């Protein structure tokens, strides 16, 4: 295996990017990472992006966003109709094969023109489920209730996750929801006093859908050391998928997350026996973070309380950025978790982190990436 590192990151995220097209708001993001590594589009061995036509309401919408890259002379390029974390995985494989030494990865989502809750119904079973148009919040509510009823977690646990997100997001310039916007809801107790808008989910149990984009540069070995002062090495990465049929799955579990974590080198909440300094989860519903903690063995082995408060590790152990409850960029939030973790390590706020991405309904597909500073 080659050593491959994240060497540059850039992100943008706001409630509604309604003065810019995807191209217009991605030009500064992509230009920023190109500037950080002093490379032009043609200098990258590979370029891979992630986006969804259903958000843009336009077929093959990704070809427009290539305008933001600079594709002349022609570049080596690919695209996935997936979160950008999977675009990064494709690029990582290409670097592992030794074909190239550098890759530019970006992804973006502009959901403000439509209604993501409803658009996501189109990813479900087209014969039995999509014709009923269940919105995403309702499906999450059905899964959360099973977890509550079975005693796997409590409403207080969920509220604690939401409250911690608000507290941690306070200083995150990309966060749309934080203690600044909800100063009276930074405790589980206060959140529990709020109404259940999609019972048993409260508004703060559900991520707020926003517009945004992210770009990342990865490089192999000496090239990584040449391009930045402190490469953030990808020590383990894997993604796994469960069956799509939500009626045939145990919705209180995410076996694919557990399997991906094991393949990425995680065991008993540790990476190769070493403790993590922090985690960035992509959990668009509070209860999903509790399921992920359970699947990664973090509740048991690190002495975390099931309320997700971080236990002895403090608030900053889980989602120090506030996570996606503070701002959810469909198609971008997964790659943003990797970028957030990488930036934090670069800034010396930790040496070892786990970044997670999810895709599909109700934690169907999961990617786990373990990052370490130089």
């Amino acid at each position, binding site marked *: 295996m080659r050593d491959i590192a994240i060497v540059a990151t850039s992100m943008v995220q706001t409630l509604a990017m*309604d*003065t*810019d*097209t995807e*191209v*217009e708001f991605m*030009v*500064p993001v*992509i*230009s920023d990472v*190109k500037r950080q590594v002093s490379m032009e*589009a043609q200098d990258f061995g590979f370029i891979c992006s992630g986006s969804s036509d*259903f958000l843009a*309401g336009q077929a093959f919408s990704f070809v*427009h966003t*290539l*305008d*933001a*890259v*600079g*594709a*002349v*002379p022609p570049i080596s390029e690919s695209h996935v109709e997936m979160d950008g974390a999977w675009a990064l995985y494709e690029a990582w494989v290409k670097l592992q094969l030794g074909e190239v030494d550098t890759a530019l990865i970006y992804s973006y989502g502009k959901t*403000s*023109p*439509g*209604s993501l809750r*409803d*658009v996501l119904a*189109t990813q479900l079973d*087209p*014969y039995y489920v*999509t*014709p009923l148009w269940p919105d995403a919040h309702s499906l999450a509510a059905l899964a959360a209730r099973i977890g509550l009823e079975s005693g796997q977690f409590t409403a207080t646990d969920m509220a604690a996750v939401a409250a911690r997100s608000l507290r941690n997001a306070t200083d995150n310039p990309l966060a749309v929801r934080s203690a600044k916007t909800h100063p009276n809801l930074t405790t589980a107790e206060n959140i529990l006093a709020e109404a259940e808008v999609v019972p048993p989910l409260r508004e703060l149990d559900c991520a707020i859908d926003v517009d945004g984009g992210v770009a990342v540069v990865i490089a192999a070995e000496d090239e990584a050391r040449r391009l930045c002062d402190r490469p953030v090495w990808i020590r383990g990465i894997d993604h796994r998928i469960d069956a799509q049929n939500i009626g045939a799955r145990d919705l209180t579990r995410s076996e694919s997350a557990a399997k991906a974590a094991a393949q990425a080198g995680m065991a008993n909440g540790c990476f190769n026996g070493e403790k993590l300094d922090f985690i960035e989860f992509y959990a668009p519903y509070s209860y999903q973070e509790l399921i992920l903690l359970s699947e990664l063995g973090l509740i048991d082995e690190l002495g975390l309380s099931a309320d997700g408060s971080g236990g002895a590790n403090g608030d900053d152990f889980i989602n120090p950025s506030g996570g996606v409850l503070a701002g959810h960029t469909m198609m971008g939030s997964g790659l943003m978790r990797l970028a957030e973790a990488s930036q934090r390590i670069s800034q010396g706020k930790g040496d070892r982190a786990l970044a997670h991405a999810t895709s599909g309904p109700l934690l169907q597909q999961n990617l786990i990436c373990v990052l370490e500073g130089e």
Partner: protein
Amino acid sequence: MSAKIPKPTALAKPVQLPERIANVEQVRSVRTPISLNYDFIPGQAAQAYLTAFGEKRILGQRSPVDGAVFVPPRGVDPRFGVATTEYVELPDKGHIGSFCVTQVPIPGRDDLELPYISAWIFLDGADIGFIGLVGECDTADCRIGMRVEAVWKDDDQIAQTAENIKWWRPTGEPDVAFDQAGGRGFAARQAARADGTGHASQPNSANPASQ
């Protein structure tokens, strides 16, 4: 191909229909239409373009890299991934870069008589073309390099829409030379730039209006 390709074993097991539905017409397909609503707000470049277009003006943007002019503007020079912010007002005159005589109608355009001509219109001073109809021109007379001008709708029908220009009609001016028409002039300028022999682009310098 041989017709004797064996059926894959995975598909070979027969489905036994329960008695209750064995002798009725089977459902073979199902209609599951989707419909999604979007509140579409154009970006900065398209806002400027459409607003000007509603005043019968045509805006392009100039590349900060080599001065190439793109219309309609999209806020970026797609060759280099560089933001474009300088607007250029372009005349409603140009030439045909390429064209196609079409024998099938456009849904919703009953006003179009068949056959009609669609063409890539290269405005004077622009480096790329955009699509339009050619009217007041016999199909046999249409040719690459032919000079055309916009025929706008009546002023009371002008809005911020691409439908403002009904079609483009011949001006009768001398043609643009074939090897300078359409994208070929731009391609030549770009090639010169790549060789290091070119100077800052002179968009459509073959056109009278840009000289």
